[in-house]
């Protein structure tokens, strides 16, 4: 998959990696051509603005691979200390996982199982509410390839792919010519529904601005119209900010479509209503199949957050927010999700993998994380690695590390690294911790000091 050009096979020769995979966002574009000079990617052909920044800014960091309490330490010492922190804890939390390989995710779940940890991924603070809604309603869905080849009505609801997934339009949804949409963009209608006129709205044929925190009301209005139920026009306009005629026009377009798709974002899941908003959207999609073919998909943010959902589901039966403290998995968002476990001051130790809760969590959650011993793995320095008891600087997945990542439509994609890193991978660190934990377990030492929780 890689070719080397230039005079002679010296270390400085330009290396070209074809079909490299970008793991910055959930699009996981696997058609990137990387030009690599020694330990630097100098060009990333076909990458978007986010992908280019991702590839060109992951050089080898000239920092220690491990720090314990801020002081440089060997990786072996770091693994020993990390294992000790996790094994001795009575309520350890393992969190993050959306920017690492499926292979590493699998090991992290094993560690959680050995030590009886609370296991959660960044899904809980992006599409976790949608994950809850999938269980309640189900998901009528398809691959992005089907969207590309079939969709003639594309709706983005509470999602701004022009900034969050810049190649979404050109590679998967709006612009491509497809088997059943040979005319490409001119045969597709694009609708954006949002509280502000985003960059994505500028690419749409129709933009419907709605009142903030009124997605639920708008979605149920559409459900009523799909079922030809009469609704109160005055109330619809008062609640949603748009006249009933606008919603009726949208419903007419939805019923007339040959293949419709709704991509939805965190405009639904992070705002009041949360899983109820996602449930309403999934139910609307299901309803539409009485009239035509309609599917929906959450636009997933991190490169392998979909892999995290898949791996945690294979291993525990649940996608996120899983507690293994009793030796079997229990799922309860709001109780076993990281934001809650930290803000409620329950966890007494943590391991954060490829995530930055010290920047992204609420103040009470951050305050508690800072007060307990925790381990952090990240290729870059972040507020989370700075405050960690044990911080590992790791190789970057997809750039230095091979493995598997899942695209947002649950399609697994292989990673083709560009160059080696002197830093260990997440996988190596996690396997080291797992081996130590297994040794202690086999020797009769029980996690949590005085027995399994």
């Amino acid at each position, binding site marked *: 998959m890689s070719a080397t050009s230039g005079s002679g096979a010296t270390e400085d020769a330009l290396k070209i990696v074809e079909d490299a995979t970008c793991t910055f966002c959930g699009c996981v574009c696997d058609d990137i051509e990387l030009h690599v000079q020694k330990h630097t990617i100098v060009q990333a052909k076909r990458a978007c603005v986010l992908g280019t*920044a991702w590839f060109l800014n992951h050089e080898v960091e000239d920092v220690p691979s491990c720090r314990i309490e801020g002081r440089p330490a060997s990786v072996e010492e770091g693994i020993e200390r990390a294992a000790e922190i996790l094994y001795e804890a009575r309520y350890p939390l393992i969190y993050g996982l959306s920017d690492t390989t499926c292979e590493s995710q699998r090991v992290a779940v094993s560690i959680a199982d050995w030590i009886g940890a609370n296991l959660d991924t960044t899904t809980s*603070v992006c599409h*976790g509410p949608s994950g809850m809604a999938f269980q309640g309603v189900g998901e009528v869905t398809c691959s992005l390839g089907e969207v590309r080849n079939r969709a003639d009505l594309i709706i983005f609801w509470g999602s701004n792919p022009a*900034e969050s997934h810049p190649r979404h339009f050109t590679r998967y949804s709006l612009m491509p010519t497809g088997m059943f949409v040979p005319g490409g963009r001119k045969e597709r209608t694009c609708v954006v529904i949002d509280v502000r006129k985003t960059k994505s709205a500028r690419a749409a044929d129709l933009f419907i601005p709605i009142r*903030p925190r009124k997605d639920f009301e708008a979605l149920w209005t559409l459900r009523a119209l799909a079922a030809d139920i009469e609704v109160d026009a005055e109330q619809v306009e008062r609640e949603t900010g748009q006249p009933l005629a606008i919603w009726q026009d949208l419903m007419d377009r939805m019923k007339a479509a040959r293949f419709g798709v709704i991509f939805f974002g965190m405009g639904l899941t992070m705002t009041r209503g*949360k899983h109820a908003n996602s449930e309403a959207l999934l139910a609307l999609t299901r309803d539409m199949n009485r009239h035509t073919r309609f599917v929906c998909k959450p636009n997933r943010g991190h490169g392998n957050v979909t892999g995290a959902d898949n791996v945690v589901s294979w291993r525990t039966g649940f996608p996120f927010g899983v507690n293994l403290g009793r030796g079997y998995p229990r799922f309860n*968002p709001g109780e076993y999700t990281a934001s809650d476990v930290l803000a409620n001051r329950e966890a007494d130790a943590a391991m954060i993998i490829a995530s930055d809760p010290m920047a992204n969590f609420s103040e009470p959650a951050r305050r508690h994380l800072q007060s307990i011993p925790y381990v952090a793995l990240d290729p870059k320095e972040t507020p989370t690695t700075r405050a960690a008891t044990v911080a590992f600087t790791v190789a970057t997945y997809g750039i230095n590390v091979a493995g598997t990542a899942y695209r947002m439509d649950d399609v697994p994609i292989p990673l083709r690294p560009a160059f080696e890193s002197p830093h260990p991978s997440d996988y190596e660190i996690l396997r080291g911790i797992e081996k130590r934990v297994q040794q202690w377990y086999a020797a009769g030492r029980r996690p949590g000091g005085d027995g399994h929780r």
Partner: protein
Amino acid sequence: MSEETFILIPGRTSDQGCGISEGKYARRYSDAITAVQMNAQDMERLGLSEGQPVRIRSEHGSVVLPLQAARADELPQGLLFMAYGEYSSRLMGGETHGSGMPTSKGIDVTIEAAEADEVDTGRIA
């Protein structure tokens, strides 16, 4: 000016996304997460100008950040927008209402003019 009520919408931006790759202690990221956008008509009504520091206060915390006029028709009146990051997180509460997800968008806030030496810009923990 007296305190005014707004709804804050934190979200992704290209600069914030690129900034994550460049590094959270690099300029691009800290610039991206430390500006708050407001509709130009709201700014005029409140007598606020580009770059004016404003204190944004929610039920859970407060930050002082410089104001930026939103592009022509991007943001309706009554709404504020800022990129996700440490400063938007300070305005979130820990309650997840049984979902695991704190309310991170559509946050009720008040704003008032602040002084330049109160600005939080660039001081990431």
